[in-house]
């Protein structure tokens, strides 16, 4: 994601380029927006080191300012595991969810512009009991916390 570009777009009296183009009737603002990048390399990694490398390198610092909320210790079903992450690190730019034992470690990456609260909730799949990492990028540095979520076998097992 090209943060510089987005910040450049935001300058100029709060009207983005997209909005200007839209106002001119050139494009549909919503359709134009997702032309942003999808970091293919980051979604194909199998361990933390290469995920970090693909995300732009850096060594994460464990931080008590990155906090899980509404995230269970045990998931009744691995197909849907609720995860909530909030960051109290100033100038948080992005929040990523990584599941250590999934086939690909990176589950989701949320880019947080100024004015958006650095807190998101979503639901991810977990193949098995695993550590889940909350990785925050702020001011070019990485901060991390983790928790283990157990995945149980439920129901009649049939």
């Amino acid at each position: 994601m090209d943060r510089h570009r987005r910040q450049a777009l935001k300058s100029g009296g709060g009207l983005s380029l997209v909005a200007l183009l839209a106002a001119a009737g050139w494009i549909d603002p919503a359709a134009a927006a997702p032309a942003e990048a999808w970091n293919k390399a980051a979604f194909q990694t199998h361990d933390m080191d290469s995920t970090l490398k693909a995300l732009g390198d850096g060594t994460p610092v464990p931080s008590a300012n990155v906090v899980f909320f509404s995230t269970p210790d045990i998931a009744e079903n691995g197909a849907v595991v609720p995860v909530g992450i909030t960051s109290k690190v100033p100038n948080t730019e992005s929040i990523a969810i990584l599941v250590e034992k999934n086939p690909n470690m990176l589950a989701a990456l949320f880019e947080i512009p100024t004015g958006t609260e650095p807190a998101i909730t979503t639901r991810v799949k977990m193949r098995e009991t695993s550590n889940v990492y909350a990785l925050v990028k702020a001011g070019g540095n990485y901060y991390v916390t983790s928790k283990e979520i157990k995945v149980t076998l439920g129901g009649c097992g049939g």
Partner: protein
Amino acid sequence: MPDPMKIRANLVGDSTEVKVLMSHEMDTGLAKDSSGKVIPAWFIQKVTVLHNDQQVLYAQWGTAVSKNPFMSFKFKGGAKGDKVTITWVDNHNETRTDSAVVG
């Protein structure tokens, strides 16, 4: 044509809380169908949220986001009647855009 999203945008204090449900298979590409054939990966990769015309969130997703994805977050500001517009694009380049009015 993909199904519409279900978007809720509500003022909570001085922030707008956005909750969205999307209709999508989010196939990992690892599962097999009943005949043993691999079901190819099919998943939402990009999600953009606009408040009126200002981007308030951009998400990149992999196959580990659950089927029929749910996401919630808050952005500062927003007023009743403002528009929240969400667009997703999947790896087949299918896309869907829906809007909700802040309530």
